[in-house]
């Protein structure tokens, strides 16, 4: 009854394409500019760090969409079925993410950039007494180009496979599903259950390689969880924004305040989970006060105080106090406001994870030693070129997601949980 009133095909109009293409063009212009306006940091570190920052951020969002589909299927969840095509569309960005991260990986082999200190072969040889780095030599069984490019690439391909498979089964269910055995759904349950442990362990390895290893001497066992939570909140925030946009365009008429309420609860809960992990990591390092560990926070508090404390305010204080009430999770105004704040906030969080370490490595590679304060364009705070690059990557992400979305029905009409989703009540 309700299903018939709904538009089931998404039309990716020329105007939307044009807007997103302009966004991508802006991103390309900003990347070219940041390639040359490097602010005195050598080896085009500004360009490459922006590239890494945004690739990691949006690939992570696609991974979390895949992961959350698998979680929902395994948990017999039914509330999300009505808009599951949006997450399936997000998950297909993993293919693009694979290419983006491959470019970074090839760059390590071809010395296009010096993002990773461990990639420097000369410091691993004990005979080079002046530059030999015993710590990185000890870590070189894991922190090496083979792990980064070959094994890392294979891991992302495994993610791509599961993202593709879960969507392919879901699309095939539209055409040939609806049998009494729910054979498509049963098959999806196998793939989803297999993906959960794979994603759980492999995402940690990729976070160590892609992000944590820019501070190559430092490590934290909580770091992967903390980064994963950051990805997850960003994914939920982007989902809310895309759903509100599509609803305004007349799609997803059946997605009600009840569904947004649940998305809002996830955003609220995982913002607090993120804060919990952030604080746990900080407090243990602060308490133990071991020099090798405190250097990470010392560097950030001394040279990036606005980013460091602002990170906590926008990613914890804002969602905590705005989304605490029942009705703010059900109203578009507050929900969209918090989603935009959190999407930018967690992008900012990744900025703070990556940039200080990359700048430090770039200074070392240039032969500079000691403390280096002062303002560095593109590193001290996100500049206009960084924001433009982010908008370019966001446009790319949305372009891929909307293209995928337009190629299938918006309603998974034979999904056994569809009816439950239509009558969802919080």
């Amino acid at each position, binding site marked *: 009854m309700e299903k018939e009133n709904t538009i089931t095909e998404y039309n990716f109009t020329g105007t939307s394409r044009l807007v997103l293409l302009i966004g991508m063009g802006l991103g390309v212009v900003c990347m070219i500019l940041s390639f040359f306006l490097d602010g005195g940091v050598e080896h085009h570190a500004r360009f490459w760090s922006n590239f890494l920052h945004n690739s990691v951020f949006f690939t992570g969002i696609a991974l979390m969409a895949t992961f959350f589909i698998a979680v929902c299927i395994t948990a017999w969840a039914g509330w999300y079925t009505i808009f599951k095509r949006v997450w399936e569309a997000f998950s297909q960005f993993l293919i693009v993410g694979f290419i983006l991260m491959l470019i970074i990986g090839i760059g390590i082999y071809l010395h296009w950039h010096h993002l990773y200190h461990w990639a420097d072969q000369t410091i691993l040889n004990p005979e080079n007494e002046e530059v030999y780095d015993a710590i990185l030599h000890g870590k070189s069984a894991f922190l090496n180009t083979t792990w980064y490019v070959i094994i890392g690439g294979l891991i992302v391909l495994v993610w791509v496979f599961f993202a593709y498979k879960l969507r392919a089964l879901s699309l095939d269910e539209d055409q040939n599903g609806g049998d009494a055995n729910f054979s498509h759904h049963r098959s999806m349950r196998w793939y989803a259950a297999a993906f959960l442990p794979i994603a759980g362990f492999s995402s940690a390895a990729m976070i160590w390689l892609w992000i944590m290893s820019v501070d190559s001497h430092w490590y934290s066992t909580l770091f992967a969880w903390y980064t994963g939570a950051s990805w997850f909140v960003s994914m939920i925030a982007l989902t809310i924004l895309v759903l509100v946009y599509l609803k305004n365009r007349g799609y997803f008429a059946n997605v009600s305040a009840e569904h947004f309420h649940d998305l809002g609860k996830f955003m609220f809960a995982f913002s607090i989970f993120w804060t919990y992990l952030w*604080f746990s990591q900080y*407090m243990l390092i*602060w*308490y133990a*006060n071991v020099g090798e560990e405190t250097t990470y926070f010392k560097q950030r508090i001394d040279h990036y105080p606005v980013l460091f404390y602002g990170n906590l305010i926008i990613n914890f204080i804002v969602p905590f106090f705005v989304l*605490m009430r*029942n009705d703010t999770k059900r109203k578009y105004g507050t929900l969209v406001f918090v989603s935009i704040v959190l999407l930018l906030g967690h992008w900012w969080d990744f900025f703070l994870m990556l940039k200080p370490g990359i700048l430090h490595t770039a200074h070392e590679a240039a032969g500079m030693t000691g403390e280096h304060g002062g303002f560095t364009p593109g590193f001290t705070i996100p500049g206009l070129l960084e924001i433009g690059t982010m908008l370019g990557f966001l446009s790319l992400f949305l372009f891929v997601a909307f293209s995928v979305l337009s190629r299938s029905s918006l309603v998974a009409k034979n999904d056994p949980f569809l009816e439950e989703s239509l009558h969802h*009540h919080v």
Partner: protein
Amino acid sequence: MSYRNRSIVYGLYNDEEVLLDAVKVANEKHLKIMDVFTPFPIHGLDPLLGLEESRLHIGGFVYGSLGTLTAFLGMTWIFVQDWPQIYGGKPHWSVPAFIPITFELTVLFAAIGMVVTFYIINGLGPGVVNPYIDPRITDDKFCIAFDVHEVNQVDAEAFLSETGAAEINAKTL
């Protein structure tokens, strides 16, 4: 909300869907329902009865904030004023170390405060005997009750039998 010493007419229904329809009919006829008793929460019943959202959570926020302040100011006083000691070379006023206990007391105050408030508002607690209409409303019966001072007993009984109540009774609580 005490229903002590009130004369009521009530009907017991076997199905929650029948009860929901009956409540809609009562609203159309402007019969003032005293209360509805069900063994489990029924989706869509609250708006039909015109029940407002509970304000218990506002109390929860106040109690929680009180816990935050108690813990934080308490530890500040203890570790800075009353008995300053140095632990691991940290300053006396070590905010990160206070956060876990501040969190715990926030949760504790909010939880206990809300439970006590809930009990007081509903007249519950140790040693209190509350009247009940029928023991089966905690099992498989769904009850609509009218106060005979608000709704004529004949009207109420007619309404209950029309809308499919399985049993109709009157009693004084």
